[in-house]
């Protein structure tokens, strides 16, 4: 099996999706000759032409709004929003149109749209380039929200997202773009897009994480194991819907749950997961569900971002509080 970076795996996945369906078109700023600022679309305009890989004017609402029109004509657009913090000009089109058109039209209009968004911090960027806005979209009925944490998932999940008849907001953990993994390009995924994955098993505590935090959670699990704590790590993969069954099964076994994400804790995905798991398996919990994530601050200057972003130590601190409530 070939080894490739997450960014390259996404590139290969997009290529496959375009080969499979001529209605798949890519739209975004700088995605043509440049191949996107993270090179995820590298070589695709060269190979598929500028009618399928379209450099758009610099206006995010325009990118998404015109993609809605293309979808209404039967196309399957894949839009790139250049950075997390630049998605807000498109927020109205995403929330008021993309998310609601299928419902408004009673199923007559399908918006088979994928919105790719590099997200999260840890790359030393300036303001608006390190945000985690996923909760806004997970909160919005009509959208599906997913995020791969590794190259193999990136390759498979982007193809599943493009093939979905529902709009999918596809968050790409930008600080993991260059991390490599084995990718089997010979077959499609046999895992549904919205199934969480148990990425390492354990018996004392469950950590649920997604996107860029999965690798951090695995670090925490490794350190924990050295210190005698058996930690199970779940990669959520999907943030809407959330695969609560997989989390519940794990928590019924471990009795303890820590949810980790980069986004601010208040009203984040962790809040929803803590509430649901408390409802579903309260009497199996040995301790309150703990959350670890960004502070209730805007994203800080990059020389201080290591304080904001949870690392293995901060996750393990919450693991300890679960073990000794």
């Amino acid at each position, binding site marked *: 099996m070939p080894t490739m970076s997450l960014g390259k795996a996404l590139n290969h996945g997009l290529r496959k999706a375009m080969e499979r369906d001529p209605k798949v078109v890519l739209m975004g700023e700088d995605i043509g000759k440049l191949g996107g600022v993270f090179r995820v679309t590298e070589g695709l305009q060269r190979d598929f032409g500028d009618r399928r890989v379209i450099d758009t*004017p610099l206006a995010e609402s325009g990118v998404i*709004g*015109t*993609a809605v029109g*293309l979808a209404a*004509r039967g196309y399957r657009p894949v839009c790139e929003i250049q950075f997390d913090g630049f998605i807000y000009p498109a927020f109205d089109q995403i929330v008021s149109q993309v998310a609601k058109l*299928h419902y408004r*039209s009673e199923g007559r209009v399908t918006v088979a749209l994928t919105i790719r968004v590099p997200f999260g911090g840890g790359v030393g960027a300036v303001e608006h380039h390190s945000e985690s806005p996923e909760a806004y979209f997970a909160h919005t009925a*009509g959208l599906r929200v997913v995020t791969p944490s590794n190259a193999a998932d990136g390759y498979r999940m982007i193809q599943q997202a493009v093939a*979905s008849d529902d709009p999918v907001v596809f968050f790409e953990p930008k600080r993991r773009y260059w991390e490599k993994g084995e990718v089997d390009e010979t077959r499609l995924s046999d895992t549904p897009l919205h199934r969480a994955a148990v990425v390492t098993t354990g018996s004392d505590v469950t950590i649920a994480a997604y996107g860029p935090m999965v690798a951090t959670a695995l670090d925490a699990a490794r350190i924990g194991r050295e210190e005698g704590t058996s930690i199970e790590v779940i990669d959520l993969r999907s943030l809407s819907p959330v695969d609560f069954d997989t989390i519940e099964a794990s928590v019924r076994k471990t009795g303890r749950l820590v949810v980790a994400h980069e986004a601010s804790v208040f009203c984040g995905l962790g809040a929803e997961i803590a509430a649901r798991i408390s409802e579903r398996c309260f009497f199996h919990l040995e301790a309150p569900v703990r959350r670890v994530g960004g502070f209730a601050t805007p994203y800080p200057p990059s020389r201080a971002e290591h304080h904001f972003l949870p690392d293995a130590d901060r996750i393990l601190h919450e693991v300890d509080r679960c073990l000794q409530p």
Partner: protein
Amino acid sequence: MATAQVRVPEPSIPEWTGFDGLVQLISVDGQRTVGCPYWELVADVDAAQLRGLYRDMTIVRRIDAEAMALQRQGELALWAPLLGQEAAQVGSARALRADDFVFPSYREHGVAYCRGVDPAQMLRLWRGAGLSGWDPADYGIATPAIVVGSQALHATGYALGIALDGATSAAVTYFGDGATSEGDIAEAFGFAASYVVPVVFFCQNNQWAISEPVRVQSHASIAQRGQGYGIPGIQVDGNDVLAVLAATRLALARASAGQGPTLIEAVTYRMGPHTTSDDPTRYRSRADEEEWRVKDPLARLHALLRTEGLADDSFDQDVVADADEVAAALRQGCLTMPDPEVSDLFAHVYADAHPLLLEERDAYEAFLAGLDEDGDAGA
């Protein structure tokens, strides 16, 4: 992006500075104007077609009046009347071809009627029985966009699809003077001009965005707003159905010839309130309303028909009878429209199954099933 369309020099927008640049073919008192080059575009319109336009406008006004009455009688939650804008809507819609596609705002009942939508289905969203009323694919018209300006981007994207398909149809989007201040309109102009796609931006400048007169939006004419994007603008008398027909035909011909977008500003007047919840007496004068009342689009076409001997009392009676018949069917359709079922609430949020939604639906249905006869949850 390079489109595959071949640029051709014709059709071009004629030089026209008469009537202060306003394209007008029928004067306010119902006379044919002289010298306007747009006459050429409607040279084929014969007596039968003129009578047809008058019939359409009368029916559309009757639909509007019936819907207003239904709202006042408590049968509709809201209605956005088109009174005064019949010529702008019928003139433009009757220029469209079957494979053109319309992206309207929420006041385009006249356009929807001309596209063949059952008037009763237009009421669905205003009654609260649904969020829309018809299948866009059946009629070539999307359902109303309530977030003003959003639909101009959809039209532009659809037009990009037309260009990618190598088709010769066009997308047409309707919006008002208020919407021209929205960023989505500016972005639609930018994208459409950049891509050179077949889209017609049809602005009904009805002078009022709820209570704000058009000068709050802009001190320049709306037709001029496209120039900075390289989009030619046509300012047309929106109460002159022939002038609107001509301008729209020209814009569609440009679109199909690969010349890209055209902006049409139809200068008209919202004779009624913004919606049934509005009270125009708080912000505009009777003198203002009176000034526009004499420019009434139906009266103008009727005067022309009478002057030219194309309409007599029997024609007038026929048209009224037709309109009454449409109104009666509209009322009947409204009163017999079913309310949504609980299951409809949860249907079509997604194309594919979503477990959270199924869980909530099942839980709510179980809750309803557990209620006693009085509708109490009781122990």
